[in-house]
């Protein structure tokens, strides 16, 4: 996935969350976005996900300019898979129905095909025993794995993950990170906002450090963690790596 931003700006009221971002990133398979809370990581991901319209500026993905009218955004959102922090699943639908909904309603699968696709993915994630459970009957880790299953069932161009483990305890975090690592290993493009520096470093091949609404530093993940250049990143890593 190759991302380019040009003068990308977004404000909420007086607060600038994306501050005139202009950069052409190299092609990368797995991009990790790190940075302090409130620095604009999530807004950046949401803009790429087509869930947020920038106030001005442009965004291209794989050389294709993203247009921000309703129809284009809808088609864009259908072509990618997005997973949020928590509460991704619809509580009135079972795990299986949650996966079927986008397949049948947004991607034109017929019911038998959709069931087949959904069941094979649940099986792959070893969740087949939970297909008929409602989200409330599942653990946080299971819910998040089903949300990931729902996101990849539609065969997305790439996967966007917004702090997918921040609402989970360490054990569940591990089970979710395992799956993400697995997806990354099989060459699926993904962009991940995360607080797990270790995971960002090992799983991602490219890394963005976002703070104060700007991409302060970017580069191959190994380089970024081994020799941070900017003072902000040095301070940030110093703070988060302390414990």
């Amino acid at each position: 996935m190759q991302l380019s931003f040009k003068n990308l700006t977004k404000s909420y009221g007086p607060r600038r969350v994306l501050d005139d971002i202009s950069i052409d990133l190299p092609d990368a398979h797995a991009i990790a976005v790190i940075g302090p809370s409130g620095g604009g990581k999530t807004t950046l991901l949401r803009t790429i996900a087509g869930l947020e319209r920038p106030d001005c500026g442009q965004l291209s993905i794989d050389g294709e300019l993203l247009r921000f009218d309703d129809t284009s955004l809808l088609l864009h959102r259908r072509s990618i898979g997005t997973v949020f922090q928590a509460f991704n699943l619809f509580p009135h639908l079972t795990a299986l129905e949650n996966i079927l909904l986008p397949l049948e309603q947004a991607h034109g699968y017929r019911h038998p095909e959709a069931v087949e696709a959904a069941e094979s993915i649940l099986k792959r994630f070893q969740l087949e025993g939970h297909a008929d459970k409602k989200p409330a009957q599942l653990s946080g880790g299971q819910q998040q794995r089903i949300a990931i299953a729902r996101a990849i069932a539609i065969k997305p161009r790439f996967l966007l993950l917004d702090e997918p483990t921040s609402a989970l305890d360490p054990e569940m975090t591990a089970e979710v990170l395992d799956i993400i690592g697995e997806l990354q290993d099989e060459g699926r493009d993904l962009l991940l906002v995360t607080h797990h520096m270790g995971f960002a470093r090992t799983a991602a091949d490219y890394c963005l450090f976002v703070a104060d609404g700007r991409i302060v530093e970017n580069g191959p993940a190994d380089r970024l963690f081994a020799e941070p250049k900017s003072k902000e990143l040095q301070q940030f890593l110093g703070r988060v790596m302390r414990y």
Partner: protein
Amino acid sequence: MGNMLSAIWSQPEDGSAPPLFSRIVAFTTVLLLISALFWFAFNQLQYGWNWGAVWQYRQKFLQGWLTTLLISAAALCLSLLISVFFALARRSRLLPLRYLSLLYIEVVRGTPLLVQILVFFYVVADAVGVSNRYAVGILTLALFAGAYLSEIIRAGIESVGESQLESAAAIGLTRLQTYRFVIFPQVVRRILPPLTGQFASLIKDSSLLSIIAVSEFTLNAQEVNAFTFSTLESYLPLAVGYLLLTLPISLFSRYLEQKYRYAT
């Protein structure tokens, strides 16, 4: 004595329903106590009961009860349509629609149904040349209930969290699909109890249509009272008749509530 107490004492913290026997004992006790209270009150009354006179008009009661049933059913269906429309209009991106909805809800909820019926029948319906009092009655009742229902529906829609709307957008549902597959199924389950409460009110409110001479249950009871001068004998069956309509509704709502129960 300890046994008696434990039979009617329910421990809510374990969440399970109390045993059937305890429930029957408790319910019967309450029923007996209340019956005894009313029995005592009516006995004090020194009232010359004359059920015979009223019994002669049983057909009239039945006919009025059926009219109330039909009017309520019609108004109920119509009010659902009206309320869904105004609940959505309230959230519309079109500002005039939003204000229309706001104005409708505030005016209807803020004024007495009695006045609304009179104005609608003698002014509005007259002006547009509609003279069928049943049609006007049903429409007024539906508009009245619709204002309350639409607020219930709006609150239900708003109770579906922002994160779910976000998820719906992220998986590529259109606005319409989001309403159909994500919002409405959850709204229906959440608003069932207040909705049925409102339906029961609607049935009772239909009694006010008697002032424009719609021949429904209450008007017929009033007429029987006028013919026989047996006030209590005319109005007690009225209460029972309304209970026969409202009780099944609330039992049905309990049943649905159980059926659709899930944690959020």
